[in-house]
């Protein structure tokens, strides 16, 4: 304390710091050249591949955990089926699939860390995730840099426009949901001879909600429907009545809604209370309308609501029925689209691995080989399980990684044997079901 400090320690300290920094940089520059691309070749050539580890990054905590949890459940189921019933990847000598799950947390930062961890610790060749688009965006920069295949269940359109080489998306992109919702409504209107002149669009204001609703908006304009208002709100809204009141004053023919979850239930309940009864209310990417838990929470407020779905749980194919019943047996509930996306995405990965084993027996897990295998896939219901699970029944990738045959199904909540059940009504209604259009009593 007090008196003037001598300069010696200052000089020593600076010298030490400079020396350490210099040494660190020197060492780094010396070592980084060869290790600049720490090539993930965990499986040397011609060595029998025991198992292929697929990384799964999903939000398991925070507000987005709902679907992340289900996706992980579904992934475990699919992997078990592939390993036990299909005998693993046959072209890789029956190599088993394995998954490593990482929590994407609540921010892109943690999602990115999760991806880094999977790559650095487990040297995974493929990562599946991460449902939230901006999480996937953060992961994409990592997977690209490390040449790891990223198969995503995030739907925002932008992801496919990043010029990424190792990116694939089987699931229908966000704007396709909006388009499908409008197509469905207009299709029905034509079929049942209902005139539709005006519409109101409401959406939660995330990137996903906005992209979907913009898709719907453009499509409505294409059909010549007047959009009287396009309302956005935050997903954690606790009071819907001001919005419903506004809509009621506008009195539109139809409402296209893109809610997230609890806001969807809140919308339906408030709309019912307000006596808001347009000719039709169609959801797009709206889990809050047709998800079993939402139906449980909303009760008959969501009766006759529809929703576009990335997955068609009622698709009458052998494998689809099998997976749905397996899922129900194991987890006691219907798979929602989070699980559905995993179903077809994982079987697509499986097909790609088979293909890679056939095309590049020497080094099938090389990222560029894997990429070529993915791009060479052309799956339909007769040649693959994956396509049997997919709404449109076809999977083929464009060079930007987007599925050329992407499309959605439409579910409607109907009263079946006294229980509210989501049933598929579009493109083809499921067995014994007819779409209800327009809303009764409107």
């Amino acid at each position, binding site marked *: 304390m007090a008196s003037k400090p001598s300069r010696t320690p200052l000089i020593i300290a600076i010298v030490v710091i400079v020396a350490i920094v210099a040494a660190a940089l020197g060492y780094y520059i010396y070592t980084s050249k060869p290790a600049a691309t720490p090539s993930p070749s965990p499986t040397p050539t011609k060595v029998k591949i025991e198992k292929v580890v697929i990384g799964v990054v999903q939000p398991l905590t925070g507000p987005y955990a709902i679907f992340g949890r289900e996706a992980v459940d579904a992934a475990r189921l699919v992997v078990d089926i592939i390993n036990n019933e299909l005998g693993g990847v046959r072209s890789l000598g029956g190599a088993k699939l394995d998954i490593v799950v990482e929590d994407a947390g609540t921010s892109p930062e943690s999602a990115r860390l999760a991806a880094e961890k999977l790559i650095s610790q487990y040297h995974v060749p493929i990562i599946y995730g991460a449902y939230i688009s901006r999480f996937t965006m953060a992961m994409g920069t990592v997977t690209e840099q490390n040449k790891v295949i990223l198969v995503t269940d995030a739907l925002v359109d932008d992801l496919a426009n990043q010029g990424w080489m190792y990116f694939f998306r089987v699931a229908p992109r966000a704007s396709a949901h909006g388009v499908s919702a409008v197509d469905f409504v207009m299709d029905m209107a034509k079929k049942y001879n209902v005139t539709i002149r005006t519409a109101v669009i409401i959406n939660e204001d995330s990137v996903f909600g906005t992209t979907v609703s913009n898709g719907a908006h453009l499509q409505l304009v294409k059909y010549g429907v007047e959009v009287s208002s396009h309302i956005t709100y935050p997903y954690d809204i606790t009071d819907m009545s*001001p919005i419903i009141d506004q809509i009621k004053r506008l009195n539109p023919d139809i409402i296209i809604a893109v809610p997230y979850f*609890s806001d969807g239930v809140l919308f339906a309940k408030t709309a019912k209370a307000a*006596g808001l009864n347009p000719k039709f209310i169609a959801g797009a990417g709206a889990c809050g309308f047709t998800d079993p838990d*939402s139906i449980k*929470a909303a009760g008959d407020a969501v009766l006759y609501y529809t929703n576009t779905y990335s997955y068609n749980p009622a698709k009458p194919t052998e494998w689809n029925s099998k997976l749905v019943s397996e899922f129900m047996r194991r987890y006691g509930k219907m798979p929602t689209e989070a699980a559905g996306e995993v179903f077809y995405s994982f079987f697509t990965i499986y097909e790609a691995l088979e293909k890679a084993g056939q095309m590049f027996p020497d080094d099938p897990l090389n990222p560029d080989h894997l990429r070529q295998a993915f791009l060479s896939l052309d799956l339909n219901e007769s040649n693959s399980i994956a396509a049997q699970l997919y709404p449109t029944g076809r999977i083929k990738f464009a060079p930007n990684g987007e599925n050329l045959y992407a499309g959605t199904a439409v579910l409607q909540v109907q009263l079946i044997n006294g229980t509210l059940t989501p049933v598929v009504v579009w493109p083809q209604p499921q067995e014994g079901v007819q779409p209800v259009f327009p809303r009764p009593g409107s």
Partner: protein
Amino acid sequence: MSVGGLLVAVLQQVIDGVFLGLFYAIVASGLALIFGVMDIINFAHGDLVMISAYFVWLISTYLNIDPLLSMLLVLPVLFVLGLAIQKGLINPVLGKEPLIQIAVTVGLGFVLQNIALGYFKAEPRGYPNPVFSEGLSIGPFVIYESKLLSAAVSVLVLFLLDQFLSRTRLGLAMRAVTDDRSSAMLMGINVERVYLLTFAIGMVLVGVASGLWMEMGQVWPYLGTSFSLVSWVAVALAGLGSIRGLAVSAVIIGIAESMGSLISPSVKMAVVYLIFFFILWFKPRGFFAKR
């Protein structure tokens, strides 16, 4: 929009805002009471509402009864929970630095949120068909039963609270402690016991708020964050020591939020918080503080 149409729109928003505000009043009342008596900065208030809403939901679905009824069953549980939280967490940090109190209550909020997440999962939980779920159309206006009910119950409970605080022995003791802790001891008031009961009663108010909420909406683990800051804004606007002031302040906030919705629901909270800024700048003790 025509002038008449606009007028209807604005009036409808005012009606919605008043109801919302009265609901906010009941949400904030527990916080105001606890903050007034104990001077504790509770950042977990909204999360307490959230956890209590889960209790209400559990009982509602298990017994298949209306949330308002199950709320009555939840209240004693919350009372006991309040005693425990006060004894275990709040008492040790009373009179400590505000930041320490914030740290501990934020920690409590984390714990509650993640217990809810782990146990109830992230899906929204709600009672599908509450008794009061319709709307009444009066001329061009819509009155929502559930909101009307929540406003009415809120007014009733706040009235009872006001009566409790002014007429009962314990209520008087609580107000005495709010005003002057050290003098209160000279009246033979056991201040620590008053603290315990205050927190417990605060939790009962939280329970009422959560029951009313479940009549209107659903609960999910992060519901609480929506309520915490709003409650603080209401308390700031009202100042301490007046239940009526709190009700009026909360209504002002409700109307502001509802009007903000006319601009865009995405920015309505910004409107509320801007009001908060101006209150703090120009009326730092609140509009209704007696002091």
